[in-house]
Structures are given as C-alpha cells and as structure tokens.
C-alpha cells in the first residue's frame, strides 16, 4: 500500500472520530445543563435521581457503557435499537453523550454554585423573574468561569473517541488495527499521533481564543 492510500484510509477513520467528537459536544453540552438543574433541584427525588445517574456514569468505565448500550438491548430484550447500517456509530454516540453530559453537569453545577448569592438577591430587588435572573445575569458569568475545565474535558473527549472501537465503530484506531496492522504495517500507528496533535492543537487555539474573548469585566 502506498503512503497516499494509507493516508486516505486514516483520513476516513479520523473523519468518523471527528464526527463522533462534534456530535457528542452538540448533544452533551445542553443535556449536561439539564442534568445539572436536576441535581440542584429542590425537589429531592429528582435531585437524588440525577445524582445517582451521575454517580453510576462517572463511576463505571466508558468502555463498559459502550458494551451495555450496544449489546444489552438485543441480548436481554431482543429489540434492535441499533440495527441500522450506522447502528454502531449511533450506539457509541448515545454512550458518549450520556457519559460526557454527566461530567459536564458537574462542571456546570460548580460554575453555577460559585456565583455569589448577593447577585440573586440584587436581581430580585430589581424585580427580575427567576428565569431572567438565570439567563441574563448568572449564565454568562458561569460560561466565563467554566471555560478552563470545559476545555480540559473537550480535549479528553477527542482522544476518548478511540474507545468506540470496542464495539466496532470504524474510527481511526479500528481502521488501523483491522486494515493496516494486519498487514504488518506498524508506522501508521504512530502517524495517528500527528492527526491527534494537529486536531488538539487547533482546538487549543480555538478554546484559548474564546477564553480571551470572554475575559471581560475581570477584576
């Protein structure tokens, strides 16, 4: 196999990794906010439920969650949730979204609880509703405060996408293992590092840019 053929193959695999990464972010960022509201809720059963879910998801390996999402529905209930052509990818996406939403929710919770109580009181004095207080006063400050820990999780997610090979998603490592390693080609394994380094490098610059943009009103 020529260099270009291998490069093409790796690009195909990496596009799957990137797609998984992007879609996970798109779904997990809002879902994380919902879960964080749940775990901060004053309605106890809901907050216990959310905290238990977060405990289970954060307390078990992502690899295991992938297996459970993809294989268990078919084995125990004989229903094919992911029977389609892209079933493996969908299953991996679901597992990643749930997993990352739980981590994000705890970052949000930390951010939201770090806003001084005085601001809620001031907003109340000004006659703002709870909704207005949250979306106009609190949320933007939270976004600023959680940029650094979120960047951390997002970069971890880039590399975690390779776990999806456990259920046979054709991402970059799976492609390499099945099509190149099996031919005795080892160097593509190291070449993968270039893909990840470049991608994470661009991401770091982008996240740094946002962080800078958001660093107004610093005291």
């Amino acid at each position, binding site marked *: 196999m020529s260099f270009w053929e291998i490069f093409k193959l790796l690009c195909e695999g990496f596009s799957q990794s990137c797609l998984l990464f992007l879609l996970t972010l798109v779904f997990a960022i809002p879902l994380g906010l919902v879960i964080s509201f749940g775990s901060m809720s004053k309605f106890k059963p*809901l907050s216990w439920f959310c905290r238990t879910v977060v405990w289970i998801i954060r307390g078990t390996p992502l690899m295991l969650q992938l297996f459970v999402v993809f*294989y268990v*529905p078919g084995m125990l209930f004989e229903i094919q949730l992911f029977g389609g052509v892209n079933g493996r990818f969908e299953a991996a996406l679901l597992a990643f979204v749930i997993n990352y939403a739980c981590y994000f929710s705890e970052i949000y919770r930390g951010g939201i609880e770090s806003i001084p109580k005085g601001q809620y009181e001031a907003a109340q004095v000004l006659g703002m509703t709870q909704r207005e207080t949250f979306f106009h006063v609190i949320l933007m400050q939270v976004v600023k405060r959680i940029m650094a820990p979120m960047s951390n999780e997002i970069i971890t997610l880039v590399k975690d996408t390779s776990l999806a090979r456990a259920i*046979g998603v054709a991402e970059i490592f799976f492609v390499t293992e099945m099509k190149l390693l099996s031919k005795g080609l080892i160097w593509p394994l190291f070449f993968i590092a270039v893909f990840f380094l470049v991608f994470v490098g661009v991401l770091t610059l982008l996240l740094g840019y946002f962080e800078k943009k958001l660093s107004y009103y610093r005291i």
Partner: protein
Amino acid sequence: MKKILSVVLAVVLAFGMVAAFSSCTQKSDWEKIQEKGYFYCGITLYAPMNYYENDELVGFDTEFAQAVAEYLGVEAKFVTIKWPQKYLELDSGAIDAIWNGFTYGDEEGISRTEYVDFTHAYLENRQVIVTKADKLSTYNTKEAFAGLKAAAEGGSSGEAVAKELAGANTLVTPFDAQSSALMEVKSGMAEFAVIDYQMANAMVGKGDYADLSINPAYAPESEVYAIGCRKGSDFTAKLNEAIEALSENGTLAAIAEKYKLTNDLIANIGSDK
C-alpha cells in the same frame, strides 16, 4: 408547578421505557432478515476468506455469502468485528452469522455448539505453525516448541493448539485478529504463531511476511469450516438449504477454484451430516 412538572416527566419517562421494552414482537430471525432485506456477516479481514483488493471486499467467504444471499433473495452485508466478541455480537443481534472461516470444534475445551448453531461444513482446514524461515531447522520437533512464546488469536482454535505446544506456564499471547499473531512473529515478540492453514497459505512467505514460513514439524488434526448462527434460529436451516443448492449446481466449486481452494472444498454438502 415545578414539582408537578418533574413528577409528570418522571412518569412519562417510566412509561416510555416500559413501552419500548414491551413493544418487542416475537419474530423469527428469518422473518426479520426478510423484512430488513439483508443479513450481517461478522468478519475479520484475512486472505483468502475476506479481504480488500482495490477497495473492494473479496475472498471466498465474501463471494460465498453473496451467492447465498442472492439465492435467498436478500443482500449480504459485512461488518468487521473483534473476533473475541463474536458470540456477543451474534446474541445481541448485531450480526446474523459468524461467517469468516469459523472452525467447527472446541474453544477452550468447550464445544462451540454450546454457543452457536452450525450450518453444514463447507471447507477443510487445519491449524499450522508459523515460524521465521531461518528457524525451521531449530524447531523441528513437537517438543522443540515447549516453553517458547506463542501468539494466537484470542478465542480461536489456534489458541488451544498453542497452549498445548507451549506448555501451561508459557504465555500464549491472545490477539484480536489472526493476522496480528503473524506480526508478533515477524517482530520477534513471539517465536511461533498458530493460525489457520488457509490464511497461512495465502499470506506467509510473500510480501511483508516473506521471512516467515509454515513449520511442518507438527500438524494438528484437520478440522472444518462452517457458518455459526444464533442458537435456535431458523436462519440456519435457510442457509443450509442455500448451501446445498449452491454445492449441487457448482457455484461453490467455481468460487473455490477462483481462490485456489478446490482441494479443500467439501463435495456434495448436505449428504453427509
């Protein structure tokens, strides 16, 4: 208001789950396949069974499955799986058949018939030992392999042979795919590998593996390939019907000739078992 909303949401969620789990109607495998219009074969990539040639999946098992699918009026789709996870893939319905030079026999002392229903056997095979070509004279008896490092695919019939040869206290390195075992030998991480004869014949001694050779010092008993289906599935009978017909009309023989497997092809399938 908020409390009521959360209670309502929780109830809706609970009902949704019950509905999802109870909506599973009991359809047979073959009915499901007919409805979908295709069946999935779980494969690993290796010559001469399933491999890529100019971006196209070819190989004996590939063409065999396509011929069977055509006979049955559906489509055959292939998906690369991790071999040690094959029963999980099959039981969960992610694949419909293990169709990749699947040996009819034991796995770690347990008969594979415990896990799957086999179709008729269609091809002869045996496990062979692969060593570096310059070590052929050193490892020339069965005993010479004792205590060496071995590589074999995890959960393959080769693993059992490797364990038998290398001894209980020697590390048999299990791998996800048979071809990784060859790489172990090539890189010197293992002294010998135990893999399928069909694969060894197609890959060893040429290209990247030019310095490897099949070692004739020990030849385990011959075995046969068959297709593995879910236990109790009616797909097995459908496959058998197709295999018998294709064996009789010569389609199977033509595919075997194309991949130089004529000598190993089982003749008149269906009349023996």
